[in-house]
Structures are given as C-alpha cells and as structure tokens.
C-alpha cells in the first residue's frame, strides 16, 4: 500500500481520529445505553449511513487535495458536520443525561456548513486562477479525458474538434486560420542520453514555453511523440510564421540544466505551418500535410 497520500495530511488524519474518540468519550460520560426495544433501527441505519458518508467525504478530500487554505476549510467544515452526524447516530443508541444535551447535537453541523460555504468561495477563486493558466491550452469546452498526462496539454483529438469548429466558422465568412506543428530537434538522442523521465520533463518545459509564446486566442495541444500543434484562429500565414519564429527563438535561448550539473543544455525546435481556408478538408490530410512539410524542413536542415 502506498503511504504517501496519508503522510501528506498526517496531522489531519490524527485529528480526525482524536475528534472521533473525544466525541465518543463525551457521549460515554454523559449518557446511558437505551434498552434494545427502544431503538429505532431504520432511523439508526439512516443516521449511521450519513455519518459514514461524511467520513468518506473527509477521506476523499484529504487523499485528493494538496495542503492549503481550501483544504483546511473543507476539512474543518466536514469534520464539524461529522461530529454532529456521529452524535446524532449515537443518540439512537443512548439517552443523554441530562436530557437537554441532545439539543446541542446540531450546533457543530451548523458551524461546519458555514465553514464549507466559505471554502466554496475560496475554491471558486482557486478555480478561476486555474482557468487563467489554462487560457491558451483550452477553448470553449472542458473535457479532461482528452488531456495528455505527460504535458498536461490537450491531446490531438481535442484539437480535431477545435479545427472542425474553426472550419465551421470559415463557412460563416471568417478569415482563414493557421495550424503550426512544432518538433523538438534531436529528441531521440536526448532521450537516449538522459532517459525517459528527463525527456518527459523536457516535453513539459517546451510545452510551457510554447504556451507562453502564444496569444490568448491560440490553442496549444500535444500532437504525438516530440511534436506539438497550435491552432491560430483568424490568422494568416505570414503572421503565424512570425509567431512560430518568435517561439523557436525563445526556446533556443532557454537553458536546461542537467541533474547535479551546472552545464546548461540548449534545445531547439523546428516547425511547419499551413493556412487552412478549405472548410471541407478532413483533419487527417491537414496534419499529414503538416508532418510532411516538417519532414522536408528536417531534410533541408540536414
């Protein structure tokens, strides 16, 4: 079993156990057991289920979220609700003495819900910041099943939908759009020399640099292997070539440091670009033309 997710929020897990023990201890000191005939089993089952579900929510929150304000608020809110649920459940099994203690059951849940509402607000803020970072990597539509795990960009299938979308805009009289394909020079040799993990890191770095070099209206996706593809809506060939040139210059200046060494390594990209003004052209011939043009650039460079 992997311990890492548990170690991240170690103190919160301990707090949860402590909270449960304290809640049970308080109940034990202030109550007596109900006679079996007095227990409403269906009600106990329902309230037990609520307690369990709240516990599962807490576990999922701790297992999936990083440390931070939103996590703390969510944890605090859910824990308070959990204590209320637990007392409510135990109330079915025991009778509180003095009896008025029963009235306090719902107080933690009330506080918990307030905390959760505050966390929802901060969560929304957090999400808006993420949306900001996704600006050049996503357009109009979110579908995380189409992302490439290594670079965090959308895959070529997502690009296909977007190209179709742009083509339908062509039909409405929009000006042509451009597709640019970037390819990392000598990636195979880099991969051989530095291994898979380091080459994945290079892919991520180049993806970041490409996305920095694009306009907000452009969309960058992972093509395959060491290739990336950008769609420039309403852009002519000359403009797109200028963007690609600037991006290539930017990447060529980036110093990449090997582990434990201070010698910088430089990587370069080459690119090919096509302007699309045919609204009926299929996606596959388009990308085949892009790859073909790129291969010709490669041959010319060699």
């Amino acid at each position, binding site marked *: 079993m992997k311990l890492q997710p548990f170690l991240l929020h170690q103190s919160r897990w301990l707090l949860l156990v402590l909270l449960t023990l304290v809640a049970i201890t308080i109940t034990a000191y202030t109550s007596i057991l109900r006679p079996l005939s007095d227990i409403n089993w269906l009600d106990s089952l329902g309230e037990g289920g609520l307690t369990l579900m709240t516990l599962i929510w807490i576990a999922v929150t701790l297992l999936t979220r990083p440390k931070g304000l939103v996590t703390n608020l969510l944890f605090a809110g859910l824990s308070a609700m959990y204590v209320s649920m637990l007392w409510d459940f135990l109330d079915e099994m025991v009778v509180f003495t003095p009896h008025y203690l029963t009235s306090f059951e719902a107080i933690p849940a009330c506080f918990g819900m307030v905390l959760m509402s505050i966390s929802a607000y901060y969560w929304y803020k957090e999400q808006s910041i993420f949306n900001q970072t996704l600006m050049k990597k996503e357009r109009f539509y979110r579908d995380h099943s189409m992302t490439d*795990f*290594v670079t965090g960009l959308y895959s070529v299938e997502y690009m296909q939908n977007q190209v179709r979308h742009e083509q339908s805009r062509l039909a409405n009289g929009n000006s042509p759009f451009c597709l640019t394909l970037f390819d990392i020079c000598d990636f*195979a040799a880099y*991969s*051989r020399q530095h291994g898979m*993990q380091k080459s994945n890191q290079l892919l991520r770095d180049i993806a970041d640099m490409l996305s920095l070099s694009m306009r907000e209206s452009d969309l960058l996706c992972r093509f*395959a*292997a060491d290739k990336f593809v950008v769609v420039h809506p309403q852009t002519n060939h000359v403009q797109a070539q200028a963007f690609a040139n600037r991006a290539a210059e930017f990447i060529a200046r980036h110093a990449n440091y090997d582990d434990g060494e201070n010698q910088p390594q430089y990587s370069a990209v080459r690119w090919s670009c096509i302007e699309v003004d045919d609204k009926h052209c299929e996606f596959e011939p388009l*990308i085949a033309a892009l*790859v073909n043009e790129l291969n010709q650039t490669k041959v010319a460079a060699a």
Partner: protein
Amino acid sequence: MSYFECQTKQLASRYFALPIVELASQRGVHADVILKGSKLFYTDLHANPTRISYEQFETIVSNLISQTSCQEVSFIYGQYLLNTLISHHAELLFNCHNIQQLLKVLLLKGLDILPFYHIRKLQTETSCHLLFSPAIAEGKPAVTRFLCEAMASLCCGYLKWRSPETTLTLQFPYTKPKQVAQYLSHIHLAYSFDHSDFAVVMSNQALAQQQIGTFPYLVARQLKALPPPQRGFLAQLHRLQLKYPKYHSEQIAEIMGMSAATFKRKLKLHQTTFINEKDRLHRQQAMFYVAEQGYSNEQVATALQFSDITNFRRAFKRWTGLTPSYFRKI
C-alpha cells in the same frame, strides 16, 4: 530441440514487464492497475532474475491498452527496447556490415533478442519481404497491435540511428487506427494498413545499405557467444511444418515429444489449431507467389503441391476471403 510455451516463465521482466509498468506510472496509472490479473507484484519485478510468461505479458499489455492516457506507450516502449534490449546486443547487431548481414543475424538469432515474432524471408528478384509470425502464441488483436507498433517504432529508431539512408515499407495487419498522429510522428518510414501479416518490405538494393561505423569481424565471435536458441511454441511448430510439409499433426506431435491429445490441448492453450498454423504458412507463400511473383494459379498450385487448381482456389478463398484472380486485381 528446446522450445517454451505461453505459460513458461521465459521473458525477462526487466525488459518485458518493468518498463511497461514504469511508462504507465509516468502517465498517472498505478502499477497495481497494470499488473492486475497477472499474479505479479510490483516488488517482484525489481528482483533481478525475475522472468514472466507470455500469458502474464499479455495480461499486462491488455491492462495497459485499456488506459486512455497510455495510447502512445507502444511507440515509446519500442524506443525503450531499442535503447536497452537492442543496445544490449549492440556488439552483434551494430557491427553487421550491411542490412543483408543484419538480416542474416536476425533470422538466426532474432528470437533470442525479441522472442515474440519470428521472421520468414521471401525474396523476388527486386524486393525482399520479411513476414512476421507469432512465435509463442496467437495474440489477442489489441496485443498484436501493441507489439506491431512497438516493433515499428523500434525499427524506425534503429534505422534512424544506425543506417539513416535505408528506406523500407512497413505493413500492419489491421485496419487504420484512429490515432493516426502517433503513426505520423513516430514512424518516418512508409507504411500501410490492412495486410495479413506484419511485414517489412524493402528493395534488394536496400539490403546492401551499410551501417554506420561497423567492425564486421566482431559479428562472428558474438554469434558464437549467444546461447542455443529458445524458440516459442509456435515458432517451433512453424519450423517443423515448413520442414515436413506433408506431416500430420500426430507426426509433428511425436517429433515435439508429446501425445496427439496433449499436442491438441497445447495448441488450444496457444489460441490456435494445427490447420490454422499450416494455413498461415501456406497463405503467406501463396499470397507472395500471386502478388509478388505473378504466378498463375497452376504455378502456385504446383509449387504448394496441391492436387488440382480447384482445390487451390478453394483453399485460397478460405485463407484470404478472396479468390486468387480477384486478389490479383486489387
């Protein structure tokens, strides 16, 4: 003559299990998901001499392909094998003077290096066809595709590295997949789909293409240094079927040292039948005669020792779904 079966633990986990698990974990898929049903644990894979069976390999690969984030892993895995497994045999392979010699070495010792497929070489006056047949067991279609993609990527990487001038054509035994971007990016050689076998086709001139920086005199020594070959079950069967084309399954069973019933059971375990494998070999040869050599039906029927042409035509239809004359037209 030794051979191993799909349940024999013959494949080194450091080449055939560990990298697949690692590549998946780099794409956010936990090792337990990839190893599910293989009766292997992640910690087992790290123990050095661990070997796995073909069945376990197939389970691992099937689990991998079901993950959407791992679609390109087959190609990356091919490159990984190039940098590890193939480079492990660098002294032998990299020193072959030209492609012709490399091919000879592969025909002799290929199964020691990559045990999944064995190669059958068919040659005309102008071109050389290398047909790949499964060497251990008949694979599931998805696993076959994974292995073909890995081999294609391996082949491209090797040629780019050691013999960049060589051009050849890859033929894939399945219809064109949706992820065509992967093929466009990873495969720089010509390729086509919808073939009967995974095949590599090159002109006879390409065979003379030299590799970079070779010391050919090292090859012979390295060839001797390799242990005697360990063939998979199907590779052994194909070998015997080619050597004794007239033998029945009972006779082949006897040569392989088992009873006819055991032989039949083992064939079933390897997802095939005796006739199926015999048909495969006949089909490869017949299609080659018809498509590449331009033989007439009479000539093919005679060459394959059929009693008459009608029988041959019927058999050809059974193997390929097409009559020989229709096959010639397309």
